């Protein structure tokens, strides 16, 4: 499993919402449990937190035929290829690992929270005690030792698997075909392809907190790919222009004659 582009496949149709992955993630990453609030749902905590990098979302869904079903979706970092968080990260804390996933070097994070605004999936979370942002790193230290991420390891139904990206994409499409109906593969067609793929039983827009077509926000592209280089080019242009002005046109020097003949001249 070393040094190849990996992808984690989450087959939501096989998930029983046991939340073993949620616990395994916390345990491996030594994240504390925090006091939570019962909001009338099994979904707990209610949202991703700085200490909760993956979360099973519970959703009650009634389809057009009036059939009720539970939708369980393991939420967390999608590990984009064209990662908006990396584009904005000023310190290089967010980076691509040798597996194509998005790692986070916590010691470099300065808590600017720019990644939180940029992420199209609303994943990074901030801890004001440490003034740092946290998110899933797909257990990169485990991957480097040839181990599966903690969530994959803990999954008892085989809903979460990991492998070479191309292999997993093929596997995902095969599974979606097998399921038929609205079943689809989510993740390989946008932001350069994510390194976390879903097999969804329903159309993506059905799922809570799941963007139908996520992109690096246009505002972020304008900021980082247009205005950022433009500011330096403009400053450089001005410096060069000033120099050329000085040597070609010359400075605007006061007329010494008019200084001596007070009030005269011109």
């Amino acid at each position, binding site marked *: 499993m070393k040094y190849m582009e990996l992808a984690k496949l989450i087959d939501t149709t096989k998930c029983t919402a046991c939340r073993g992955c949620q616990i395994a993630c916390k345990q491996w990453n030594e994240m504390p449990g925090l006091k939570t609030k019962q909001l009338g749902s099994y979904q707990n905590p209610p949202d991703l937190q700085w200490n909760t990098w993956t979360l099973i979302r519970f959703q009650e869904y009634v389809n057009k035929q009036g059939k009720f079903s539970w939708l369980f979706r393991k939420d967390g970092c999608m590990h984009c290829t064209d990662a908006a968080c990396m584009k904005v990260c000023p310190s290089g804390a967010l980076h691509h690992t040798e597996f194509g996933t998005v790692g986070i070097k916590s010691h470099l994070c300065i808590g600017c*929270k*720019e990644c*939180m605004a940029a992420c199209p999936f609303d994943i990074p979370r901030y801890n004001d005690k440490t003034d740092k942002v946290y998110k899933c790193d797909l257990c990169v230290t485990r991957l480097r030792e040839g181990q599966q991420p903690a969530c994959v390891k803990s999954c008892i139904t085989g809903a979460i698997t990991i492998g070479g990206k191309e292999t997993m994409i093929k596997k995902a499409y095969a599974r979606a075909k097998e399921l038929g109906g609205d079943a689809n593969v989510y993740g390989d067609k946008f932001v350069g392809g994510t390194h976390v793929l879903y097999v969804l039983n329903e159309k993506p827009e059905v799922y809570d907190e799941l963007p139908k077509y996520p992109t690096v926000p246009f505002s972020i592209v*304008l*900021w980082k790919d247009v205005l950022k280089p433009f*500011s330096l080019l403009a400053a450089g242009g001005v410096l060069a222009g000033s120099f050329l002005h000085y040597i070609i*046109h010359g400075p605007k020097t*006061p007329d010494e004659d*008019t200084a001596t003949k007070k009030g005269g001249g011109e």
Partner: protein
Amino acid sequence: MKKGLIQATDWYERLVHWMLAISCLVLCFTGLGMMFKSFNFIANMMGGLVVTKYIHNFTGLFFGVALFLAIKMWWHEAGVFEMPEDMEWMNAAGGYLWHVDKVPAVGKYNPGQKMFFLAVAIFGAIMVVTGIVMWFPLRFPTELVRWLFVLHALGFAVIFPLFFVHLYMGTIGSPGSAPAMFTGWVTRAWLKKQHHKWLKEMERKGKLVVSGEEKKV
């Protein structure tokens, strides 16, 4: 002091100018150090990115105060265009770009300076407001914060290059200008060349402060 020098600026004007200038420069360079990975060394010289972030944020507050004082002090002299001489000056580009026999005389600030003032006033205010939101982004809607990032970058793309224009024009591009912001005393020849209308107006009102001469009130 050399006799015959004229006081162009008072101590308060110079103080506010330097408050604005120094904080603006600190903001530009700490901002550069954070925005560009290739300029991270600037941040590292200041003790790392975290320290730089706090220097940037608190200097921003100081800049906001300085900007407020500067706008309050200068808007009527530098924020309002005087027609028709400002338009004539613009059409001649102030004599800076091609040969002009007689550059139209302007008041205390020429239209170029006025445009720079307006750019700093408008984009400076944008920088302060967007900067404060970027400091506490979680309190605001994500989509709004994203566009404020864009505005903050736009403000930088405007102010940073214009700063170099200002620096050039205030020093070697127009010899005799810099003393106006250091000591406040400039030569009559420089005033005649650069701000003849103001010179004549002050003389007419008898308000001109000339070194070695009794102040006429």
